């Protein structure tokens, strides 16, 4: 290579490079060709403004390329796409940069987790964050790693928590301003949860909010004796951010032990809650606890969906939340005020809300050694997989489970959980009927909780939901189908059999004016576009 020529084109390059600034992330909707953060925008809506693929032509979708992961773990990551480059994670923590139009690999960053790394529920990763030209990934051994997005070269690697004490990181970080925010998983195996922010340039920790208050802090009294120290309240899904209030919202996991709360009497704050933190300081501004003193493993680790809508005649900044406990909520995201709650699946553990929005428990609906029929069962009316909100339709779309099962305690683990198998990467045979429980995509009017439509699947679902500006909805399920629905009616418009469970949230991007839809199923990432 001629050196003079090299100098010239390097100099030119420095002028042309466009970094992903936080302003771009904050206004990600203005560049719909990209997908700059886990849910598309910091609002958590998983809504794409792209509209090239429509209800009329979606039947012409065809496979463009496939990325086969060298991993037998579930592929749960949502990719990022920045100016034609797609970044994803091959579980547990290998980062791959691909051409978003062809699927050809630019670079791979392999990561070997420390041998003590342990995840309670699968060696998975749900994605990355980006700021500038740096990618950020939390690892199974509880580190935060910064990578050069152009080359995959590691820039820094900091220890977030001790993997030897069962801390891990499985979700995509959230970038807010100059900080990378994430939390730790491991709530079922005895961690004390937290959310922490790190300087995006150096990895230096800026703040840490413990999701279980320590001695002397408000809420500590909701734990007995030393139960708070390993009480869970983990973080394993990405939070949202509201620039107007500078609040970042995170859902917390269940208290631990999961199904036996006798040694942790009390509400067990801030488990099964949404916490609203000042993004600069990590200070708690408000919280709402969905399931006080949970004994059904009702993690509240869903994505907080932020929307601005008219509420009883007044514009209001709200938060939509379909919870694993089977209830759909609308909260005022400025104050945390409970506005509304209603079951979105069959629920028998509560009978309504008191005036403060606290659920009223139904006596006897707790796990017992003999078993108790509790709806929904431990895997919930929904789970971690991300929902969607379309500002066009004003509807809230939720992957749901209607299931029945008896939750019984036996040696600290539930048994006889009925029709509630865990997700896997591969397909299996299915012998159950829909009467024994089924999966569905459901559309709700968030102002009333009214269900507008339902698309039923024979089997349950671990797939998230994407909506687009052409009134399309994409989702899938455990049966390995990936499909498109009319998001106003729920009518099936297109489907493809991908040969593996869809355990991820779909997303959309475009390259050179061509819209793509991407989803992970089994051990692979699939992309579709119009032929």
């Amino acid at each position, binding site marked *: 290579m001629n050196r003079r*020529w090299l100098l010239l084109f390097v100099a030119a*390059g420095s002028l042309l490079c466009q970094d992903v600034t936080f302003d771009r992330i904050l206004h990600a909707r203005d560049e719909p060709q990209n997908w700059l953060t886990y849910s598309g925008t910091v609002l958590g809506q998983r809504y794409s403004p792209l509209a090239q693929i429509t209800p009329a032509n979606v039947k012409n979708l065809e496979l463009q390329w496939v990325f086969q992961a060298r991993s037998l773990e579930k592929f749960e990551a949502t990719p990022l796409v920045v100016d*034609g480059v797609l970044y994803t994670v091959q579980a547990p923590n290998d980062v791959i940069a691909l051409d978003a139009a062809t699927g050809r*690999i630019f670079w791979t960053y392999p990561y070997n987790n420390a041998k003590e790394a342990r995840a309670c529920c699968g060696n998975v990763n749900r994605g990355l964050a980006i700021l500038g030209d740096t990618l950020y990934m939390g690892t199974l051994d509880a580190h935060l790693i910064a990578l050069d997005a152009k080359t995959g070269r590691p820039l820094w690697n900091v220890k977030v928590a001790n993997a030897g004490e069962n801390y891990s990181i499985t979700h995509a970080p959230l970038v807010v301003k100059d900080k990378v925010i994430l939390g730790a998983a491991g709530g079922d195996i005895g961690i004390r949860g937290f959310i922490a922010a790190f300087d995006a340039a150096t990895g230096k920790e800026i703040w840490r909010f413990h999701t279980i208050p320590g001695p002397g802090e408000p809420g500590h009294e909701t734990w007995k004796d030393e139960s708070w120290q390993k009480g869970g309240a983990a973080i394993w899904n990405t939070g949202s951010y509201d620039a107007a209030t500078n609040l970042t919202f995170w859902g917390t996991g269940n208290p631990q032990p999961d199904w036996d709360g006798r040694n942790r009497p009390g509400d067990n704050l801030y488990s099964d809650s949404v916490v609203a933190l000042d993004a600069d300081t990590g200070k708690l501004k408000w919280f709402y606890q969905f399931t006080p003193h949970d004994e059904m493993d009702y993690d509240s680790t869903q994505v907080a969906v932020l929307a601005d809508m008219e509420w009883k005649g007044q514009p209001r900044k709200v938060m939509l939340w379909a919870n694993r406990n089977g209830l759909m909520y609308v909260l005022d995201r400025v104050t945390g005020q409970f506005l509304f709650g209603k079951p979105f699946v069959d629920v028998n553990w509560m009978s309504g809300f008191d005036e403060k929005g606290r659920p009223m428990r139904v006596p006897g609906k707790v796990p017992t050694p003999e078993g108790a029929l509790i709806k929904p069962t431990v895997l919930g009316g929904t789970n971690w997989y991300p929902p969607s909100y379309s500002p066009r339709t004003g509807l809230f779309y939720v992957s749901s489970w209607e299931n029945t099962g008896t939750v019984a305690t036996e040696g600290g683990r539930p048994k006889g959980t009925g029709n509630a198998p865990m997700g896997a990467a591969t397909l299996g045979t299915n012998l159950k009927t829909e009467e024994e429980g089924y999966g569905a995509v459901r559309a709700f009017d968030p102002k009333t909780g009214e269900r507008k439509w339902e698309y039923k699947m024979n089997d349950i679902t671990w797939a998230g939901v994407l909506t687009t500006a052409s009134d399309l909805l994409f989702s899938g399920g455990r049966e390995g189908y990936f499909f498109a629905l009319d998001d106003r009616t729920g009518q099936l418009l297109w489907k493809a059999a991908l040969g593996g469970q869809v355990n991820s949230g779909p997303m959309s991007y475009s390259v050179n004016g061509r819209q793509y839809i991407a989803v992970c199923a089994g051990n692979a990432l699939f992309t579709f576009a119009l032929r």
Partner: protein
Amino acid sequence: MMIGMRLCNLTGAGLLLLAAAALHAQHSYTAADVEDGARLYQANCFGCHGPEGNQVPGVNFSRGQFLSVKSDEDLQSVILKGIPGTPMPAATFPQFMGFPVMAYVRSMSAPGQRTLPDGDAGRGKLVFEGKGECLNCHRVGVRGSRLGPDLSDIGGLRRAVQLERALLETARAPSPEYRSVRVVTKDGKEYKGRLLNLDTFTVEMLDSAERLRSFLKTDLREYSLITNSGMPSYKDKLNTQELADVVSYMASLKGTGTK
């Protein structure tokens, strides 16, 4: 591949029996073996033995000085099996990788000594970033170009004598990961950059604007690899002290990542 980390506990001069005699080459090995071995050494051995292989008491790879090792077979055996009862652990990498590690360790004491005096890393940084214009092609941390080899941790990958040689000699062909490629699209646009991937139908590069690009070959009018290295000899561009300072600076670059 955790040898390096586990070796870090090795302390004290009297842990192992010292066999101070220099070990001479018994096998032939290629430059590629040494290159592979250098990477494995960096990942597994560097943490305790250091870049010059002289950080474990009684051992100095640069001088061919080992503990209870008398042949290449002995050396491979120690690399693969460790030394029971000492902090030297068995390798966790496949057996066939023992050979390149041995090759690299052996290369550390091969003939070819430094010719430059000792340098000053602080002054070397100024030369590196100024008169030497090294950042125009290389990157250190978050500064410089991504098109040439990233030198952020070169001090852990290369010994001072190797760095010195790289500065003084005219570079040969670049290693595969730093090959350059030039394409001209059918509409006449020219792109040059670092080759990242290549297959029957496509070419992937980091272009001169440091943008990741993929091209369908059917969209190209011209496509060629640039096989010569852009690395010049600095023998006549920097004086002896400047060269020595730059070597010292590069030897000090051990990366910023921590784990």
